[in-house]
């Protein structure tokens, strides 16, 4: 009996190429037509692009200005501090990968591959050594983290939490014998990442509070939070940036001078917080009523209910949305070039206008902009893939 069941279980799979082609490319007249058009069209376009990229494009401006594009006018003798930050990140990722395995390890492997890939390029010896050093740090972290996973859990989380402050200290300096590097020298991809990361970290507590305020039963707090969220969401980011750069100095006493980066960070934080609040609100609404009722039946007060019962569940549900917001913030940082900060796009503009490329026929705009686009794309695409994996991992939406 069991053998017949086995035999009936699945029909013979058609694994030959012809069947796949029939099913996916030539099922019906319209699809056949589309296939024929695309089969002619795609290779021609690809051929033209590849031919342009290899034989016609001038990649010289990107190669000579690579450091400028990555770190802006950050002094070359201090670039090691940024590389040290990278090594610390690799070490922490290695430790985390050893402790938690799974997803973190996949990301860590990606990071290591990335560093090895870049170490193959003909950069300066010290840059390549730092890349190799980062890889070694990650590996050391992994093999330390794996056996001591239970003991290292808390210290590593604490390290992650304080790491932004360490990075800020290292990059800015002015303390512990490190010379000060003023923020107007920060630029390129470094500034892009700083803006996005500081923006999302700083806006997180504000966003959560705004979301809680909007859900509050106290009418005045509810209205104020709603007003703020809707006002900010109704205007473009660039107008908020413009306002921060022009009006923030007016709002403060005349003896306080704040530099441009801080003004922009305030604007990005305030803007991002409103969007984050809406994401968190979605999460708060997904927590079933029974959770609130159970918490109050157990005698928990409002704060305990909110911070121990509701928020953990709500935030877990909105992690993919938060990653999505980080991606859009990462893209939006390109707007600060309009108010005069030289992040990746701003530096790209500077490189395009360098006098030595004026002789190049056709200009170098395409090459430099494509490089900038590629960098942005790499970060955003990787993050969106990670977000999708987290979503699958958490089972959001399937529960």
């Amino acid at each position, binding site marked *: 009996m069991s053998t017949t069941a086995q035999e009936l279980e699945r029909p013979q799979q058609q694994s030959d190429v012809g069947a796949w082609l029939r099913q996916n490319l030539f099922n019906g007249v319209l*699809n056949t037509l589309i296939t024929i058009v695309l089969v002619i069209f*795609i290779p021609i376009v690809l051929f033209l692009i590849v031919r342009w990229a290899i034989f016609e494009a001038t990649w010289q401006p990107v190669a000579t200005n690579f450091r400028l594009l990555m770190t802006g006018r950050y002094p070359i003798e201090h670039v090691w501090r940024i590389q040290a930050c990278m090594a610390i990140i690799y070490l922490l990722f290695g430790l985390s990968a050893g402790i938690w395995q799974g997803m973190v390890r996949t990301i860590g492997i990606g990071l290591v591959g990335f560093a090895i890939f870049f170490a193959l390029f003909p950069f300066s010896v010290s840059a390549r050594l730092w890349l190799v050093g980062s890889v070694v740090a990650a590996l050391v972290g992994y093999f330390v983290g794996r056996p001591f996973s239970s003991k290292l859990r808390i210290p590593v989380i604490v390290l992650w939490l304080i790491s932004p402050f360490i990075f800020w200290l290292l990059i800015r300096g002015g303390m512990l014998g490190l010379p000060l590097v003023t923020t107007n020298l920060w630029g390129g991809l470094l500034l892009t990442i700083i803006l996005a990361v500081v923006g999302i970290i700083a806006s997180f507590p504000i966003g959560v509070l705004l979301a809680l305020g909007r859900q509050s039963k*106290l009418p005045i707090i509810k209205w104020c939070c709603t007003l703020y969220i809707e006002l900010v969401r109704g205007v473009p980011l*660039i107008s908020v940036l413009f306002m921060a750069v022009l*009006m923030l100095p007016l709002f403060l006493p*005349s003896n306080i001078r704040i530099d441009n980066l801080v003004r922009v960070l305030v604007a990005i934080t305030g803007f991002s917080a409103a969007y984050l609040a809406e994401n968190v609100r979605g999460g708060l609404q997904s927590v079933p009523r029974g959770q609130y009722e159970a918490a109050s039946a157990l005698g928990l007060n409002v704060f305990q209910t909110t911070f121990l019962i509701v928020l953990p569940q709500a935030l877990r549900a909105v992690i993919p949305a938060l990653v999505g917001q980080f991606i859009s913030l990462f893209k*939006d940082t390109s707007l600060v070039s309009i108010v005069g900060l030289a992040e990746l796009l701003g530096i790209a503009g500077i490189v395009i206008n360098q006098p030595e490329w004026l002789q190049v026929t056709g200009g170098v705009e395409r090459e430099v902009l494509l490089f900038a686009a590629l960098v942005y794309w790499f970060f955003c695409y990787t993050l969106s893939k990670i977000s999708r994996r987290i979503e699958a991992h958490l089972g959001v939406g399937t529960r």
Partner: protein
Amino acid sequence: MAQLDNKLQPSKAIPFYRNVKVLALVAQIAFLLILGLLFWWLIGNMLSSLRRSNIPLSFDFLPQTAGFEIAESSIRYSATDSYGRAFLVGILNTLRIAVLGIILSTIFGIIIGIGRLSSNWLLRNLAGAYVELFRNTPLAVQLIFWFVAVILKLPRVRDAIAIDGIFALSNRGLTLAWPVAGESYAAWSIWFWVGLVVGVIAYVLRRQQLQRLDRPLVAWPVAWLAVLATWLVSWLGVWLFTGSSPLVIDQPHLSGFNYIGGVSITAAFFALLLGLTCYTAAFIAEIVRAGILAVSKGQREAAQALGFTPFQTMRLIIFPQALRVIIPPLTNQYLNLTKNSSLGILVSFPDLFFVTTTINNQSGRAVQVILIMMACYLAMSLLISLFANIYNSRMRLKER
């Protein structure tokens, strides 16, 4: 027993510091007080620094002469006009790009979204690649790329890519043939309105007829037919009677250094429109895809069983149901597109934001200028949300 009863009775003497109502009130008053103090401090600082730099906080600069030119405008504007009018030019330019962008990105987005669900492997992956490419790069980079690396690299006007009398594409922008009012337009214009009235009457009559016949109340095809027929017949009548067409096609032709005639899109507008459309279409495609996937599989199978063609299934069964899921996030994209049009400054398109920065440079009234700009963007956002909510509730009513 008496003791127990006593405990169950709400005791009258709840101390005020444990009374939830009192606490809530106190918390809110404290919140307002702190907020008020903060604002008082900020605005006080602002007023004193404005006074120090001798900038009055009034809107009396609006009627003053602006003194700067604006590259393109849909209303008459020159440097001698007022700041107020310059604002209006900016608002109208923003609205123009937003409306066109919304229409084009919707069409484009729906096509790509459906393409992503095609059974054709090549088309499906091409659409997927498009979405991943455009969604994951910043709009600012795309806009500058379209402007500097594509449109400004087009041939000069002299060697424009053109079909004479139909279109001309050069690094100055795009010029298209366009119908304009002819000599006899005045005589025909009344028939335009007559046609609309005929359409309304036809709609009502057809509806009644359908009701009598107990058939689905779809009266608009007949109504539109009536409108078009009226326009066509009156058009021919006027043409025969006066000997000239009410609408003539204005063909672009080279005159001096640029194309004139027809309708022109400047290079900046063209780049902004391309950038906004391609970027937003990628997001709309994902929304459309998710909406279509949200329609249960049984609907498609039932339609196939009833003998609908794939196109009919999509148009009559799947899409109307998907629309309910699609509309709310789609509204968000429309809002984003409108707000993103402020990036026009990267390609020097004189939209609201660009005009605002210029006015700020000219007049130095940062506070007022920013307030006006913010208010305008807010009003536009609210308007779009309002229309979307009305449409959404109409769609929802049909739910059974």
